[in-house]
């Protein structure tokens, strides 16, 4: 009991011998790691190392084929809804509907997350200003540039104030301004929210993150505080 309470307090994501296959290919091979609660956690590795797979297992999108995983103290398979309402997800493609306007998209997601109207309004006002999309909210998403779509997608992921933010290669294909805005935002919430960032750009990751885990071919090859991170690895 004591141990579990402690885990709840200090660990955001914990896995033990987690395995996931795609067909006959093993994407995660007995991955054992911890991501602490608070700070920005880096998940490093080259393409095909299993980063995205791990992110999807954490966000309940994929079922693990073996081992144990706990996200914010919950099993993503046993209590998916408890996990889902605590996480925010930004992936490679924006999770937006092209035909709908930005505001309609956000309102749709707020209904899925069961947000109160006042809370939704204040969140949209805050976040839209912060990410400089408040003048674009009425426009159908299909008319927005890639950068604006990304900004809108980030706002979408933050709408319900997630405790755990999962960012899968968030800076790839992002313009300079958006990157800076986002970076600044992440820094501001560094101590009040857990963020897991995957990246193959190690210099970038080393500058942003507090702790790191490195995956190679589905196996953990290193983890610890960023001070111990060796970029030459």
């Amino acid at each position, binding site marked *: 009991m004591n141990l579990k309470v402690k885990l709840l307090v200090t660990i955001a994501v914990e896995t033990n011998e987690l395995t996931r296959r795609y067909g006959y290919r093993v994407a995660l091979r007995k991955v054992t790691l911890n991501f602490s609660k608070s700070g920005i956690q880096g998940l490093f590795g080259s393409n095909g190392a299993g980063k995205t797979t791990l992110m999807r297992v954490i966000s309940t999108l994929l*079922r693990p*084929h073996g081992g144990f995983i706990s996200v914010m103290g919950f099993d993503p398979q046993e209590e998916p809804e408890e996990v889902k309402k605590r996480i925010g997800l930004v992936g490679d493609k924006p999770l937006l509907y092209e035909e709908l306007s930005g505001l309609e998209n956000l309102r749709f997601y707020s209904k899925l997350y069961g947000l109160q109207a006042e809370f939704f309004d204040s969140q949209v006002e805050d976040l839209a200003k912060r990410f400089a999309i408040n003048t674009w909210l009425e426009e159908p998403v299909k008319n927005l540039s890639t950068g604006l779509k990304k900004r809108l997608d980030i706002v979408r992921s933050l709408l319900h104030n997630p405790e755990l933010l999962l960012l899968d290669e968030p800076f790839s294909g992002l313009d300079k301004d958006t990157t800076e805005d986002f970076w600044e935002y992440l820094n501001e919430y560094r101590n009040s929210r857990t963020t897991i960032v995957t990246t193959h750009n190690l210099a970038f990751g080393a500058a942003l993150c507090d702790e790191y885990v490195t995956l190679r071919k589905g196996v953990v090859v290193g983890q610890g505080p960023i001070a111990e991170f060796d970029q030459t690895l």
Partner: protein
Amino acid sequence: MIFLGITAAISLLYVYMTWIFAPPDVVLGENVRIFFQHVAPALVSYGLFGGTLLCGVMYLWKGDLKYDILGAVTIKLGLLFTTITLLSGMIWADAAWGTPWNWDPRETTTLILWVAYACILAYRASVSDREARAQFGSIFGIVAFPMVILSYLSIRIWETLHPIVIEPSGLQMEVEHMMTLLVAMIAVTMIALIMVELSYKVDSANEKLMRIRMERS
């Protein structure tokens, strides 16, 4: 081994009873013999498709690929027995009603059943990811099952040439024919079980081979 022996013995008995023991029918004469080759495979194929449903549920529940392999085997053999049913049914229909195909509801629904489960096989082949094939194939095997029930109920829904053999008042046939049918049922079921076991072994071995190959590359 013992099971194989018993099956052989019962199968011999089955051959003897259907071709020699069972008396010719009053109306249908010697043609009645085809009846046993028709009803027994039909019921066994229903059973096999029920097995598909069961394997689907088990796979989704346990996530063990062996249920999926078994499920695929039941589809294949179910199709084989449905084919036998359709063919023997056509021979029977030709003898009893003059044409091999009458678009009788049972005939139609059985043909639909054949196409439906063939569709599942074709669908499975189109999914290359092994786990996705197992998972979505299992779901498909479950949601396709109402068709089996409809096929079974079809003779009660539509006017049909098929006799309703099992009446509330009891079975409507001669005692010798009933005995023969019973033996036929047991024999075909046992043959089917042996075939399921054999195909399952072959398919699991194939599966293992694939896995070893993929892990090497």
